[in-house]
Structures are given as structure tokens and as C-alpha cells.
């Protein structure tokens, strides 16, 4: 990727965005009828699908039962055709297991699990097309799906990435920018209470720049929140209109 | 596909010379390479009670195709998740690594899993599963040599094994295959006939396998590979059913023999000169 210029002299990125711009976010709630909650999200070319089942009785492994709260169970999988080169397995590799664990930790923190003792909530996310920021798309889709399922949460969780390339922080980095090898930060946060639920960074970044990048990522999460919140409100008023009409 | 790391694999780029061979379906005139007519079965040898540890077992030879099946159970479901009023039938099908022209892997591949499912669904309608609440019957089938119609032989053999195990059944199951090459219908094809490319370009070519409950006249397994016109397909199924009915007396005969042997009072060794092993083609 040496010859590739991530930011042009005019300050535009490869896909034409400014450094602090998000990709276009499109979302839809209630994609499926059989699941308790489902949502689909597109962030640029990254497409993710989330479904939520539950709260229901703990099915497999009764040992998992918690007497004071619900168990959150997550599974992350990637469609075999989602990446540029075909993946041989959709799930079960180390990377997706780690992703499942991160998602579980994220949602255990925001779902009010104390309301459903001795039960289980399943969150399944599926990446249909991967173009950077897979974790973020998954979290955002899963948030919408959990809301669609009517499961109480303390707040939304919104996730966003920010990278630091050519001495400037970049918001919501795409696959090409991700693979340039520069450091990037993944943040999942509850936008209203401004609490960070998950923070992950790879590669190496100077401590002085850390704050700048984190601020940008935080701002990105809030921007995502604004979009998601609008979708939820639209969806609810639409469903309400349908119900009153009949 | 996962491979078994404990075993020494062969060189990766080795190839069996059989890839380059030709397969013939007809000799001079109209007979098949082994001298049969198109609608003739190969000689069948069927013997029940061959594995002493198993509850029941059977061994079949159809020409050079050799299949052995062992039945265990009914036994308690090992890790029982929930109570079932109906018993469960489990079926495993494996080709021995040396059974085919190319060497097969030790791990069950998709073709074997597919075959196992077909055999399972062929046997299920015949077994009185409601007689075995919360228990399961296991059927393990190994194809020792595949010289064509292995699936049909596996169905027949497994059914004989189940009957030998004393598992209650509504009827026995007989299996039979037909290979359609253009106009020709070859009953009980050998491997050469299965692989031959004769008729590949014709409109009708394919392979049909049927499992039949002969005395109830119900079809419990039916699978067709290839392209056939509707009329031909129906005709091929009918030929298969005919073939199954040809195998039925052999099955009956074999079970009578094995039952006689189990109950000494019924085994008039002196009066009946051993008929076992002579279950030729009917």
C-alpha cells in the first residue's frame, strides 16, 4: 500500500470524505418476522445484519443460568463471500470468537439484565459485506435489533473507529485505510452518559495524539447516535401509524 | 476439509491411474461386460449374523460390491436432551479407504453423509420406532468394496442387520439401482457402468436408487442423479421396484436361515442341508 495516498493534498480521502466525516449510514429495523428483534445496517460498503432472540429460557448448558440476571449470548459470523478473498469458514475461527466475546461484553454492560433473571438473550450478528469497521457495524446493528426486540437498555451503544494516518486523525476508516497499517482506535460508547463501553487499539500511537483520536472517535459515536436515534423514532412512528390506521 | 493429522498422508500430487481409464457398458452385441442382460441382477450373497459383538449384523455381496452392516441397540440415548416417546434411529455410512478406485479419506465426507441420510430415511418407515421410547438404535455400515450400486446394497444390508438384531419392523427394506444410458436401462450397475460416459450427451442419462418395503409396496428411499425425461424417470423407478422385488426372496431366505441358527430347536441341521451361502440370484 506504499504507493497509495490515503489523504490527498486537498485533504480528501480515497472515497472523497473529509477527515472527520462518517460514511453514509442506512438502517432498517424489523427485517425479519420470526425473530424477536432484527435490524440491518449499511455503513458505506460495510453491511451487517443483527437478530435478537429472547429473553427466553436458558436452552443449552443449564450451568450458565444466572439467578439474578439474564445471560447475554452473542455470535458473530461473516458470510464467506463478504470479504475480497473468499473466507473458508463463516464462524468459529479465533478472530470471530474474539469478536463474539467483545460483543457479549458490550451488551452485558448496557442491557438491563437484572430484569430477566434465569433467562437468556441471544444476539446474532452477521457481516454480509466487509469494508472496514466490522465491529462498529455489528454493535450499531445489534443496538437497533435489541431496541426492536423491546429489551430495556440503559442507553444506546454506538461504535465508531478513528485512525491516525499521515499525522491527522481520520474518522470511520474503511478497509483500505485499515490495511494501510496505521494505528486505529475502536470505541463503543453510551452517547448520552458518555461512558465508554469498549476501547480497543492496535499498532502504536504516540500518547500526545491519543486524546485527539479519542475525541474524534467519541464525536463519531455521537454522530452515529444521532442517525440511529432518528431511525428508531421514524420506525416507531411508522409502526404506530400502521397500528392506528387499522 | 479437515484432515486427520495423526495419519501419514500420501503425496499431495499423486494420482490414481484409473482416472485415465475408459469404462465400457457393452461388449460385443448387446450383453453387458459381465455377460448379463440389461435387466438382470448380479448374483447376490447375503448372510446375517456376522459380527458377534453386535446385536445384529449382515453382510452382502452383489457381484463384487461388498457391504457389511452392524446394528447396536436399542440402547439408552447417551446424552439425552429431552424425553421422546419415539425411539431414534442413527445411521452411519463409511466407505473403507480401499473400497473405491481412488483412495478415500478416513474422515466421513459429504457423499458418505448424504448416503447415510438416504439409508436412514429408507429404514425409518420400516422400523416400529414407537416401540422404543427414549432409546436409540445405531446402524453402522461399511462399504468394503464398491463395484457399483453400493447405496442399494447398503440399504438391503442394513435392513437385514436390523431384522437380525430383532428390532421390531413393519417390513424389510430392499434396495436396487438402475443406470440409465440413453435408451438403455441397466439394472444393478457395476462401477464401470456407473462411471461410463455412454449416453452422457443423450437426453436421458442418470442413476436411480430405490428402497422398497416389498410386502407393503411402499417406496421408502428414492434418489435420482442426472437428467431424465419424466416418462423415463417413472420407467426407471418401476424397473428399480422390479429389481427390489427380485432381492426380496433372498432377504427372506437369509433371515429364515439366521433365525433357525439362533434357535437350536428350529435348526434341523440333519434334515436341511445347509442352504446358507447358496442364496443365488432368483
Amino acid at each position, binding site marked *: 500500500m506504499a504507493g497509495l495516498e490515503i489523504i490527498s493534498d486537498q485533504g480528501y480521502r480515497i472515497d472523497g470524505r473529509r477527515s472527520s466525516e462518517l460514511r453514509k449510514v442506512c438502517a*432498517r429495523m424489523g427485517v*425479519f418476522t420470526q*425473530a424477536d428483534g432484527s435490524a440491518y445496517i449499511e455503513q458505506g460498503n460495510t453491511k451487517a445484519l443483527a437478530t435478537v432472540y429472547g429473553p427466553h429460557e436458558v436452552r443449552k448448558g443449564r450451568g450458565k443460568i444466572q439467578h439474578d440476571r439474564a445471560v447475554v*449470548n452473542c455470535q458473530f*459470523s461473516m458470510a464467506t463471500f463478504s470479504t475480497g478473498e473468499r473466507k473458508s469458514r463463516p464462524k468459529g475461527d479465533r478472530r470471530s470468537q474474539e469478536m463474539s466475546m467483545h460483543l457479549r461484553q458490550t451488551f452485558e454492560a448496557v442491557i438491563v439484565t437484572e430484569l430477566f433473571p434465569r433467562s437468556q438473550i441471544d444476539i446474532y450478528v452477521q457481516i*454480509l459485506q466487509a469494508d472496514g469497521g466490522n465491529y462498529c457495524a455489528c454493535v450499531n446493528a445489534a443496538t437497533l435489533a435489541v431496541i426492536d426486540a423491546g429489551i430495556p437498555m440503559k442507553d444506546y451503544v454506538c461504535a465508531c473507529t478513528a485512525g491516525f494516518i499521515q499525522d491527522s486523525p481520520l474518522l470511520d476508516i474503511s478497509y483500505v485505510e485499515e490495511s494501510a497499517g496505521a494505528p486505529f482506535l475502536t470505541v463503543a460508547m453510551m452517547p448520552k452518559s458518555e461512558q465508554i463501553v469498549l476501547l480497543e487499539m492496535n499498532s502504536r500511537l504516540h500518547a500526545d495524539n491519543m486524546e485527539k483520536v479519542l475525541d474524534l472517535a467519541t464525536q463519531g459515536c455521537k454522530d452515529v447516535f444521532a442517525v440511529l436515534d432518528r431511525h428508531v423514532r421514524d420506525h416507531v412512528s411508522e409502526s404506530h401509524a400502521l397500528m392506528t390506521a387499522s | 476439509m479437515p484432515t486427520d493429522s495423526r495419519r501419514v498422508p500420501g503425496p499431495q500430487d499423486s494420482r490414481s491411474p484409473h482416472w485415465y481409464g475408459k469404462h465400457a457398458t457393452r461388449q460385443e452385441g448387446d450383453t453387458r461386460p459381465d455377460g448379463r442382460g440389461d435387466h438382470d441382477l448380479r448374483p447376490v450373497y447375503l448372510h446375517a449374523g456376522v459380527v458377534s459383538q453386535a446385536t445384529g449384523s449382515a453382510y452382502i455381496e452383489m457381484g463384487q460390491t461388498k457391504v457389511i452392516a452392524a446394528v447396536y441397540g436399542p440402547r439408552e440415548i447417551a446424552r439425552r436432551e429431552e424425553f421422546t416417546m419415539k425411539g431414534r434411529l442413527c445411521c452411519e455410512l463409511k466407505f473403507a479407504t480401499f473400497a473405491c478406485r481412488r483412495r478415500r479419506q478416513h474422515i466421513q465426507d459429504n457423499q458418505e453423509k448424504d448416503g447415510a441420510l438416504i439409508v436412514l430415511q429408507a429404514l425409518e418407515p420400516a422400523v416400529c420406532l414407537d416401540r422404543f421410547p427414549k432409546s436409540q438404535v445405531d446402524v453402522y455400515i461399511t462399504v468394503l468394496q464398491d463395484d457399483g450400486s453400493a447405496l442399494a446394497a447398503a440399504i438391503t444390508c442394513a435392513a437385514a442387520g436390523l431384522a437380525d438384531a430383532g428390532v421390531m419392523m413393519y417390513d424389510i427394506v430392499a434396495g436396487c439401482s438402475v443406470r440409465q444410458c440413453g435408451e438403455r436401462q441397466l439394472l444393478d450397475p457395476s462401477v464401470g457402468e456407473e462411471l461410463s460416459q455412454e449416453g452422457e450427451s443423450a437426453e436421458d442419462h442418470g442413476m436411480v436408487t430405490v428402497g422398497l418395503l416389498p410386502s407393503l409396496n411402499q*417406496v421408502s428411499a428414492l434418489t435420482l442423479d442426472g437428467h431424465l425425461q419424466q416418462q423415463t424417470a417413472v420407467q426407471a423407478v418401476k424397473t428399480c421396484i422390479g429389481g427390489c422385488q427380485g432381492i426380496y426372496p433372498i432377504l427372506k431366505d437369509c433371515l429364515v436361515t439366521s433365525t433357525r441358527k439362533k434357535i437350536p430347536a428350529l435348526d434341523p441341521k440333519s434334515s436341511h442341508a445347509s442352504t446358507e451361502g447358496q442364496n443365488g440370484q432368483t
Partner: protein
Amino acid sequence: MSSTLGVLSDAERLFIVHGVQDDLRSDGRACEDYRHVQVETDVVSNTSGSARLRLGNTDILVGVKAEMGEPDPGRPKEGKLEFFVDCSANASPEFEGRGGEELAIEVSNALQRIFNSRSTLDLTALCIIPEGQCWVLYVDVLVLECGGNLFDAVSLAVKAALFNTRIPTVVVTADDEGQQEIELSDDPYDVKRLDVDNVPLIVTLSKIGHRHVVDASWEEELCSLARLTVGVTQKGTIAGLNKEGSGSLDPESIYEMIESGKKVGMVLNSRLKEALEKEENSKREKIGFLG
């Protein structure tokens, strides 16, 4: 397979069986009617071809990727077609972990069966260098929701995705030493299409009571002990056939089922072709999952 999706009471079962007897099913269809099918192609941009299909509540996404590989030694002048089915946990919590594998293998074997014959797809067109390089088409099926009649939905989606598949044109040049070099065209519009006219569709006929129905909903699947999956081409040829389920069938009813499978399958093939051609010629905005 259907047992994963729920249970039915005796009264519900009786209601469905009686309805089928009178040629009026619980959703108002007759025995040989399909549910509404929605299909959209080219939904995943980093594949060579893709399609999303909704049949009632059954939701399938298929992606086809063309990659280069070595041909099978037995068929040196042909490309390869590989099927992979993933029953995603999205469809049912039962499919979590390895739970969906059994069903996935069943579906991929059914696909293998109908694609088995050489007249289905011209695989020689996928050859690049005989005995050297060929195109391998990975057909990846993702089951997103299971609302009955999975096999038919998958085969429809696979055919639609293959119709949509575009393989880049390659030029093979030989240098002085006889070394062959493969050159891939840069032009995204310089592509090859597949001829899918002979690709069969699966029609599943479920025996309920004394009659059979096509396109069973999952409630109806629970009422049926034996099913016949029939591969049918546009011309009405039977391409692959399998009996499924734990019941047995009368020979006469098998012949009837094959006949109605052929009849329904031919209509289904021509409808799909119409729909795909119409979609290609219209300049409609893609909706994907947002619609």
C-alpha cells in the same frame, strides 16, 4: 429438520390436513400454488454475482465468487463449481455454533445433486488452461430466515445468482519458452456471463394426507412425513430427485408427484427467467435489505 422450528398441536395438524384435502390451504393457496417470491440480484458488491430471495418468510442470500484454481484430474478441461451452505444463527437459535451444519450439508447435497449432470452448466467455458488453470465458482448460500420450503428457495436464489455472475475475461499468452501467462482484463465491463438456461430448480412436494402440496410453509412441513425434492429444468427434464423425511410413499403417488413437480417446475423456471430479465433491463434503484 422442521422439528427445530416448533411444534404443532393435534388440532392444528388436523386443520391443515383437512384443508389440503379440500385444496384450500390455511393461507388461501391451492395445493400447487407458490407463495409470493421476491428476488433481487447484485446485492453484494464484492462478489462476482449475488442474489437475495424471499419466499414467504424464507430469506436466502447467495454470493458467487469466481477464483482461479486447478481442475480435477478426471476433468482437465472443465472448471469447478463448489457449494457451501451456511445456516446462520439468524435463522434460528438452534443453528448456533455447529447446530446448523446437518441441515447445511443436506441442502448442499441437494444442490450438488441437481448440478451433477454435465448438461446443467457448461463447465468447459470455465476452463482457462487445460490441466493447468480453471475458474472455480464458489457458490455460498446464506440462510437468513427459515419459513419453510428451504430447498426450493435456495435453488431459486442460486440460479438467480448464477444468472447475475460475471466472470472477467482472461487472455492466455505463451512466451518464447512456452510458458503460459494469464492476463486478466482490467475493464469491468469486459466480462463473460454464464448460460443458466439449463440450470434446474428444486420443487419440493410434501405429502400431506392423501395429497401433496408444493411450497409448504413450516407448519405444513410439520404435517408431512415424506417429501420429494425434484430438480426440474426449463424444458421439463427431471434433474435429480430425492425422497426425504421419515415416511414412505406409494409408487403411484410418486409418479403423480413427479408429474406435478415437472408441471410446477417449468412454470417456475420461466417466471424466474422473466423476472430476472425484467430486473436487468429496468434501471431501478437497488433496495437490498433496506426495502
